[in-house]
């Protein structure tokens, strides 16, 4: 499986660098505008800067969301619909190794987008804090605040959320992979197979969620997750786009447990099925 990961990442290198470049550039443009504003003495958010930030964030998040779906499926569309997939079908590797390897490579790739994004978001948060205190807080002090009070204080919660994120990534991947492989196994035309794959994915996701929620209602399995975000140290993150946020955010989320377990089981089953189909049914 290691070789699969290696070559998948090697193949994606160009694309990853291009995307990182795009994200870097659009955010750099926004930040430069902000620095310029600050340098000429502006102490509140100008419409231009606000718009640029909005555009940059929108672009970045769109990339992230699209990549979430593509990476989690291990770019299964490339695996099933290109001539270069001849290679994967002739190497002596099991279906689960091929799909599993691509999933892991996809996760590595996705993290390569997420980590810079976190840094960029921190920079924005720090920037707003600086504006929010009318420039009384230095930029680096603001960054320190972000890392200390947002990340460090809530470390365990963030870790749980991270785990949850991985879980969702893998689940989504299993669903998409299954939908793609199943469609390709039984349908010859590429366009038709893609359409059926997407429909299949939506149907299964919907069905699985309904099943999970129903079961958890029956059994009453819930988990309480406390999340707190202490932000009152610097008088709140004022000037955040428009309006103000309250000093401290503390909440309790009650998350139904059963859907997750159901999803886990279903994901495992779908992955196993996709692997079997990959080995026994997919044709080129």
């Amino acid at each position, binding site marked *: 499986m290691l070789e699969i990961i290696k070559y998948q990442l090697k193949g994606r290198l160009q694309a990853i660098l291009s995307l990182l470049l795009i994200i870097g550039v659009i955010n750099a443009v926004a930040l430069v505008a902000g620095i310029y504003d600050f340098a000429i003495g502006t102490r509140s958010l100008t419409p231009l800067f606000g718009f640029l930030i909005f555009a940059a964030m929108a672009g970045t998040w769109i990339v992230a969301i699209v990549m979430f779906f593509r990476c989690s499926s291990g770019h299964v569309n490339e695996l099933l619909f290109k*001539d270069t997939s001849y290679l994967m079908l002739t190497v*002596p590797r099991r279906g689960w190794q091929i799909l599993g390897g691509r999933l892991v490579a996809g996760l590595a790739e996705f993290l390569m987008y997420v980590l810079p994004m976190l840094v960029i978001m921190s920079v924005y948060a720090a920037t707003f804090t600086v504006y929010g205190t009318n420039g009384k807080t230095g930029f680096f002090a603001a960054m320190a605040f972000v890392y200390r009070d947002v990340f460090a204080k809530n470390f365990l919660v963030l870790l749980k959320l991270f785990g949850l994120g991985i879980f969702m990534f893998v689940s989504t991947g299993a669903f998409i992979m299954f939908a793609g492989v199943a469609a390709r196994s039984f349908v010859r035309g590429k366009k038709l197979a893609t359409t059926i794959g997407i429909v299949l994915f939506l149907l299964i996701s919907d069905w699985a969620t309904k099943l999970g929620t129903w079961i958890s209602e029956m059994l009453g399995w819930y988990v309480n997750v406390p999340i707190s975000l202490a932000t009152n140290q610097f008088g709140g993150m004022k000037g955040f786009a428009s309006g103000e946020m309250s000093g401290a955010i503390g909440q309790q989320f009650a998350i139904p447990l059963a859907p997750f377990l159901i999803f886990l089981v279903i994901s495992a089953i779908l992955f196993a099925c996709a692997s079997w189909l990959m080995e026994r049914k997919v044709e*080129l």
Partner: protein
Amino acid sequence: MAVILETDNLKKNYFSKQALRGVSLKLESGRILGLMGPNGSGKTTFLKLIAGLQKPTGGKFTVFGQRAGFETKKHVSFLPDRNTLYPWMSSLDAIDFYDDFFDDFDREKALDMLDFMKLKKDDRVKTMSKGMIEKLNLTLTFSRKAKLFLLDEPLGGVDPVARERIVSTIIKTWTEDSAIIISTHLVNDVEHIFNDVAFIGDGELILTGDAETLRTERGKSIDQLYIQIFSDK
């Protein structure tokens, strides 16, 4: 003489046509089989079935005694009629790839053959001409110590000098304990390297046999036999 490939009434149907209608043949080690027929006769389908790219709709086959599946992929080296290498790869990347995925890959041999074919290690697939890509694919295919080599139209679209090199390479790679199947409709260039021949038309075997025997029995070259068999198809 071990039996490398044995197919039993192998069938393949698509929605619109029957590509293979029950092909049964046996190939022993140390033999080179020429699979000949016009376009659409089922040659490529047959090879793809053995390579594992397609699954039969009927019949079965064994490679080196093993039933078709994951295990047989280890023993079969397939050279398709199109480029299947990733465009981002350099020749060296491709060699690394084969080295990583196939236990029977001979890296030294591959590097030697790369020189013999006059290819450079850093050339990338996306900048290579069709002929260069075919030579690279051939290098990779033949650097494996596989039991069964399947070559789908290895001579098409290649200039005569390259063709000679390819025929040379095929003979160089031949061993007593492996077998080679070459599908082609350019019969003239290669007929003297065939031990066995099989003429296929419309998904069925029309004539099979030992090349030398057929030549003397019918007083014709294999090329002439081909014309005779397929001229009214």
